């Protein structure tokens, strides 16, 4: 699957990582819904770190659409309130 971190680029991740990604996404949602700013920053950074470390940069010549698009790394807590709600950005694996 291809995951994009906005304003950063696309990463190729193994499909098997979907569940782990979903868990990390849910953790961000939980922090946002709990209005816990510190927890949000920690969880969001964890999510991005996971994508960067587990994924490989997607080839620039390939014109592929992302499966998931994550917000930019400098997302503020206020902005997060608009994105990370409900099931978050990564849905449950089918």
């Amino acid at each position: 699957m291809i995951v994009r971190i906005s304003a950063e680029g696309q990463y190729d991740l193994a499909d098997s990582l979907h569940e782990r990604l979903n868990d990390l996404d849910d953790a961000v949602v939980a922090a946002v819904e709990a209005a816990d700013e510190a927890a949000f920053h920690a969880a969001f950074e964890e999510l991005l770190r996971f994508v960067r470390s587990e994924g490989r940069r997607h080839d620039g010549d390939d014109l592929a659409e992302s499966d998931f698009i994550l917000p930019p790394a400098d997302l503020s807590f206020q902005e997060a309130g608009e994105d990370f709600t409900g099931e978050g950005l990564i849905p449950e694996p089918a």
Partner: protein
Amino acid sequence: MPGMGGRMSTVIKAKISKLLDRAEDPAETLDYSYQRQLESLQNVKKGIADVVTAKKRLQMQSQKLEQSVVKLDTQARQALGQGNEELARVALERKNVAQTELQSLDQQVTELEAQQQKLTESEQRLRQKIEAFRTKKEVIKAQYSAAEAQVRISEAATGVGEEMADVGLAMQRATDKTEQMRARADAVSELEAAGTFEDLTALGSGQDDIDRQLHQLSSQSQVDDELSRMKAELGAGSGSGDPGQLPAGEEGKQA
């Protein structure tokens, strides 16, 4: 899928399918898309130029403030050397304000630097994708029938469309930050215009409004500390109390 990712993908797909519905000639659609992509690239370049301009402006402000800090420090020493402790205190308070502004400006210059770097990377990425699209569109035009071409356009355009939307988002964020910093730089200019960092010799004897604000703004204990340190230095440096022999070399280290 809720959230920004979902919204963004949906918007792009809607735009592309609309474009394809209208298209009678796929080849024309492809060329049109390519032109639009080149236009976006121009906008990105312009955005980068704006960020660079904002950065230069802040750097100039920062240099001016550095000069003010040095000048105010010197003035404080002179005032103290002449036994005018009150004037020295005012100078140090102003120096304090100038230093705080300076720190904040330097931080913003660093931030703009990062924005510039990010945008430049985005621009390169976008350029690469557009180039890939150009190659692909020629292949599609040459090899596929009109019906097949529609499908291929959709595939290629979605990928490059997402990239363009993403670079657009990066641009928007950079522009917002640049605006904030421009406002900040303007505020510093206003402070300067109001005489906050001006030559002390231009000061009247009484306390003006800015002086009162400065008392609130600046950290009093920091000024007190600096004042006593300066006094000690002056005492050690010139037993005769002659202001001509002030040790002036310490300013840089304190700033």
